[in-house]
Structures are given as C-alpha cells and as structure tokens.
C-alpha cells in the first residue's frame, strides 16, 4: 500500500487539521508540559488515522513507511513540518518511533509492541558522543577502518563503557541503536529492562519527553549485521532520514515562531508606532524569514528518494541550518523582549526545543568533521 502523488496534498491537509485541532489544543499552555498520558492518547489517534506506522510487518502509508519516491518524501517531510509547527517534542517522538519501525522491517524483526504502550519503541541513530569525528563519514564512503579509525568507531558505538543519552517519551520500552562489530555497523533492538537506565533531571527542552542515560551490562538484545555494503547503505539511509526529519521539525517550529513574532509586531506599540515599523525589529524578523526560506529550500532538495540523496549534502545542510534555526528562534524571543523570556509566551520554548534538535544525532558541531571526512582520504 502506498500513496499516490496526487493524494499527498489532501493527506497533508488532513494531517494539518489533526495537528491544529488536536495537538495545538493540547499544547496551548507552553509553560505546562504535556502529560505523558495525553501524548499517548494523541499518538493512539495518529496511529488510527494512519499518520504513524502501525506495529505490523507490512508497510502502510504512515510516516517514513516509504521513502523511495519524491512525493512520498514530500509527505514524510510535510507530516513532520506540520506536527513540528504545533509541538516539536511530539514530532520528535513520532519521528523516532517511525524510524524504529522502518528499522524493524529492514531487519525482519517482529515489531515490538505492547498493548497500551503506543510509544513503546524508539531509536537512536548515533553513539555516545558526536559522530566519530571524520571516521563515520570515511566508513560510509567505503573505507575499511584501520588503527585509530577503528578504535574511535568501536568506542563510539560501545554501549557498555559509556552511557548513551536518549530523549524519548517517558514510557518507552524498546530501543533500536547501532552497534559495531567486525568493522561493520549493525543494529540492536534491546528492551528497556535489559539496560541500566537512569532518568535525568528535566532536560533543556522538548518538555513533553524525558531524557535518560543508558548503558548495557553484557547481555545483548536482538542483533542484525547486514553485509558490509548493505550495512553502509542502511546506516546512511537511516542517518539521512533522521537528519531530514530533524530539519523538517525545525522548519515547522520556526514557522510557528515566525507567525508569533509577526503577529506580535503587528499589534505591539513602541515609541508611538507598531514595533514592526522599527528597523530594529524588521531586521530581526528578516533574520527569521531568511532562515525559514533557507530551511524550506533545503527540504525541497530532500524531496527525492532517500537513497539518491547524497549523505554529505544532507549532513552539510544540517550543519549549516541547525545553528541558523537556533539563531532565528533566539531572534523571535528578542522580538518579544521580556515577554519572550517567560514560559507562558511560548517563544523561549521554541528556542529550547531548537537547541535540543541541534544537539541530537551527534550534535551539529561534529558534523563539520563528518563533512570533512566525506571529502576524501586526506581528512
């Protein structure tokens, strides 16, 4: 079952109605984090509507269930943009859940599912810190790691020596993450009960979710190590989908922030005129608009089959744009002035959420090394 190109607009319209009607209503008070129960309820509704992939072996037309056609990529990006515009935390949870379902199917695993735990499965595409400097890119490019390179990749995905950080819905019970063996990245599905899981204090943003530090003590979950070329292709695919998803959520969140700032600039008086008529405010609004356009252009580029997208191009886009999204969100806070700093306003939450998105998947900073590593053996 798949989506026809001519259906995408109508489907996104439906998602938009659900987003505005159900999610936006549930998160109206940005200072009050969404209770986990409500998050699960919304997730159940999204599952019923087919927005999220159902825990079955057969692919439907939910988020990320297909990714080999441009119009389906437009749908995937569109869903995350719409949900992200209402709430980045919910969008992030659904994005990671959908990617976990993709991986389960790729591995041929029976979908992990417990009745009543609609947000039970999640995934993490990276290791305990960064992106392994230049070495992940070089491995993805086909190089067989040696010496330090091998040591770094092995250590990067070592799930016993270093705690790994996970941001996910409070009730997750099954996790998929990459592991390293014989110069290959494979995937492991591990149950929460098999891990040492520590709940962290309230994290920086994405208040709807929780953050955990986890490590494993010997016992392994289900493992799958594809052949080397397949392993590279699969990791690159998931890595790209994750980065595109993070950008799409950011695009939605910044659009919402942009609308908030515009609306405010059109009603707030300062110095006898609307603040939107002051060049100081116009310049900040312009920064936000420039960012929005840049991200939307990048996402247009991503409306291609995932396997045809250049990994480095996606990584470079994320390296450039995730910082820009944070700066734009910060400018929105600045447009609001003191009000923007208060939690009931909502602007500061978007800034914190944007910082969280930037820090995911190894963070944006190590992407510079990744991009350099992709450029060739000199790196």
């Amino acid at each position, binding site marked *: 079952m798949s989506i026809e190109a001519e259906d995408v607009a109508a489907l996104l319209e439906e998602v938009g109605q659900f987003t505005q009607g159900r999610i936006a209503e549930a998160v109206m008070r940005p200072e009050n984090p969404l209770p986990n129960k409500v998050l699960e309820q919304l997730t159940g509704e999204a599952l019923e509507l087919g927005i999220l992939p159902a825990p079955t072996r057969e692919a439907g037309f939910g988020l990320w269930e297909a990714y080999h056609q441009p119009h389906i990529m437009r749908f995937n990006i569109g869903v995350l943009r719409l949900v992200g515009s209402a709430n980045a935390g919910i969008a992030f949870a659904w994005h990671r859940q959908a990617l976990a379902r993709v991986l389960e199917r790729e591995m041929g695993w029976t979908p992990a599912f417990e009745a009543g735990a609609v947000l039970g499965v999640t995934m993490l595409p990276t290791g305990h810190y960064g992106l392994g400097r230049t070495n992940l890119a070089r491995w993805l490019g086909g190089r067989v790691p040696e010496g330090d390179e091998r040591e770094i990749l092995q250590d990067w995905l070592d799930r016993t020596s270093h705690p790994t950080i996970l941001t996910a819905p409070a009730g997750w019970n099954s996790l998929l993450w990459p592991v390293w063996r014989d110069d290959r990245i494979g995937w492991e599905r591990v149950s929460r009960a098999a891990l040492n899981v520590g709940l962290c204090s309230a994290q920086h943003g994405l208040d709807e979710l929780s953050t955990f530090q986890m490590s494993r003590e010997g016992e392994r979950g289900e493992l799958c190590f594809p052949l080397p070329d397949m392993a590279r292709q699969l990791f690159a695919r998931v890595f790209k989908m994750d980065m595109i998803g993070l950008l799409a959520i950011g695009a939605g969140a910044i659009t919402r922030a942009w609308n908030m700032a515009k609306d405010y600039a059109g009603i707030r008086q*300062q110095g006898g005129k609307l603040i939107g008529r002051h060049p100081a405010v116009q310049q900040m609004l312009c920064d936000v608009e420039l960012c929005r356009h840049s991200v939307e252009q990048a996402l247009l580029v991503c409306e291609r089959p995932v396997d045809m997208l250049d990994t480095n191009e996606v990584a470079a886009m994320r390296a450039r744009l995730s910082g820009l999204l944070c700066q734009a969100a910060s400018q929105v806070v600045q447009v609001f*002035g003191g009000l923007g700093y208060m939690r009931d306003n909502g602007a500061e939450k978007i800034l914190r959420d944007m910082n969280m998105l930037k820090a995911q998947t190894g963070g944006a900073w190590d992407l510079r090394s990744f991009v350099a590593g992709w450029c060739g053996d000199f790196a």
Partner: protein
Amino acid sequence: MSATGHLQDHLPLTHPLSPRSRYGGLPILSRLFLDYEAGDLWQEDTARLPGGLARLRQKARAFAEQHLAPVSAALDLAPHLPPGECHPAIPAILAEAGRQGWLSYLLPPPMGSMSFRVATCPPIWQCCVVVEEFSRVCGGLMLLLSAHHLGTMPLLLSGSMSTLLKFLRPVYQSCLRGQPHLVGFAITEPGAGSDAEEGHGAAVYRPGVVAKPVAGGYLLNGRKCFISGGDLAKSVTVFAALQGEGMESWTCFYVDNPSPGYEVTRTELKMGMRASGAAEIALKDVFVPHERVIGGLRNGWALNRASLNTSRMPVAAMGVGFARAATEEAAAFARTYRLGGRRLIDYQEVQLHLATMVAETRAIRSLVWQEARHAWRPRQLYASLCKFQVTDRAQLVCEMAMDLLADHATLHENRVERIFRDVRLTRIFEGTNQINRLSAIEDWQGELLGNHPNNFTLGV
C-alpha cells in the same frame, strides 16, 4: 597538565623545542623581558587588579562557591511558587550575603560595607567584579543579590544626604545585621516595554503609573512589571508620572512593601535565572509622603537613565560570568570525556573550539574592565555598547559550549544548558540589545553630527 604531560600533537613543555623550556636558558637580560611563569588565568587577571579589588574578587568567588553553588541547581529545578513564597534556602543565603556585606558594598562605612581599600576604584567596577563571580556560579541568585543594588541606585544618585541617611542607611544596616532588606527597581509597565528605557519612545508614551497630589504627598495608581526580586523586596523605587503630565514629569517614589494598596500580583515563570522572581505589582491609591520623593519632582527620567548607565556594565559582567562558566564547563568536559581512548581535549578541533571560547571570554572581560575602570561618571555610550556587545558575545560562547557537549549539553546535570538559559536574559533586560545600540547612538550623536568645535574627524 603535569609538567611532563602534554596534549596530543603538542610538544611537552620540557621538550627542547618548547619555547618556554628555552627562555630560562637565555641571558638574564633576555629573561627579564621574555621568561614568564604561566599560571591560572583567573589568578593572573586577579593579580592585575588594584589590590583592594583583587581582594574583593577573591572574596566574591569564595562566597559564591561556598554559599551559592550548593543550592544553585536545586533552585533552578524548584517549582514555581506563588507571590510571597520563596524556596527555603533563599532566606539563609540572603541573610549571609547581607552579613558579609554583599548587599551594601556601594558605600563605605559608616553607611555601607565597601572596603576603604577599594574606594579609589569606581563602584561600578567593584560591582562588575562581584557580579561576574556570582554569575559564574548561579545566575538566579546573582540576580537576586544584584537587582537590589539597582533598586537602591536612585537613592544613591539622589544627591541628597538626608535620603541616604534616612532611607539607604537603614537598608544597608539591616542587611549587615543579617536581616536582609531588598530594594526593587520598578520602571517597566505592562504596556511599555522599552519605552521606559529609551527617550524617543518615552516622548510619545502615555504613562501607566500616575501620582496624584494629595495632602502630605501623592497617591500612586497603576501597575509595574518585570521587577527583579520585586516579590521579596521590602521597598521599591517606583517611577511614576505626575497626574496630567507626560513622561517628562517622571518622579521616583520610595515605597515600602507592605503599604496599603500595594500588592505583588504575580511572579513570572521564567526561562532561566529562576532563583530570582520577576514580579508584577499593582498600586491602588498607595500613599507616598513628600519626604519619599527621591531626587526631586520631575527628575525621575534623569535618575532612571542614570541608574541604567550604572547598571548596564554590571549586566555586561553577568555575560562575562556566564561565558566564563560555559568555558570552564566545556573545558572540564573536554578534559575528562574520552572518545576512542583519548580525552576530547587531545583532539585538535576541540582545542580550536576552546581557544576561541577562552579568547571570546577574555575579550569581553577586557571590554567590561576597560569601561568600568573609568566609570566614575558612567557615559551612556560606553555603558550601552558594553552591555550589548558583551552579552551578544557571551551567548555565542554559551552556544559554543553546548555545541561541544552535543547531547550531553541538554542534561541539567551538566550545567551548560542552564547557563544558556541564564545568559539569554542578559540580552533582554536593562533595555534590549537593540535599544542599547540606539542608546549608544543617541549619546554619540553630538560627535556623529560634528557639533563640537574643531571637530574635523570623528574619534572612535
């Protein structure tokens, strides 16, 4: 690093090609100019300060580390409380801060606690040194302790000895006895934003808090908001227009809390600096006698702007404190966290990142100290440019720390995310950084327009 240890791709300090190992072997005259002991950067900066100020810096750091640091994280995570309530740790901290003189150090004895050894340095410089130390450890408690000085500023600047003796002295003495008496500074009004901080806006702003003349004094009516520490303040310097007049009539009134008709109506749930409340107050026919008019009728606008000129450099110093804390946290992480069997600090890209962070931090501190050391009569241009430049750069340093820690930065336990939330406010309060840019130009316009005689070229 130990004397024999070294970072990856760097020569040990004892290596024959390490310049520092060779300076000691040069002739004595050369050594006089070239050889140096490389010490801790904070210690070296402290040693460059005048003696009294260096001592103050050490004391402030010790107080911050002993009394503020242990409760900082808990206060940030504590639930938001209704007006009139505060975290149980706060009264003890305020009492100790008062006893140690941190709430009264802008004047020497017999009024306050300023050491005579620092009396030759501008109080603003002293304040900047203290604020940096407090900010480094806890943004919220720093604000609670510092906003008090802004509240007292109109009293200090009033030019009236009787005001100092009658109102400020009891505040200082009470604090020194360990019975903290905080003073709030109330300028912002719910509909005003930066109009209270910028002349062009004030010229067309219709004042929200109005003072009506009555027998023996005035009745104040209206609302003020975003008063840092205003929920715990025992008195507040309130700026109000005289009835029927505009902002040019702004007058400063010294109002006690409680007073009949005075109510703290709410405190804001903030992004950061959560140990300090941002209060809104409602004034309903609050009677203020004539003797509590501070600095004279219709002098409030000048007092307000002068108070901001004194406070904007300390706000810049907050930025320095946050940038320093972020740099210290990032360095600590890089020194201990390992990837591929090596410390992060051994990787060149991490070294480049930290080098930029420490350079940025020291650059903004230099700017603050450069302006503050001459700030006996703080010029608006210097105060404003210092505030916006330093706090903008400080946020950048905090972002760099978050970048380096990646997802580890999102953990409350790693402090960096809290420092980011704290530093974000410094670009907003005391006039947004946009308002401060315009404020700098407002003050510079005489030179920009060449109004001074014999002014052929513009000095920068």
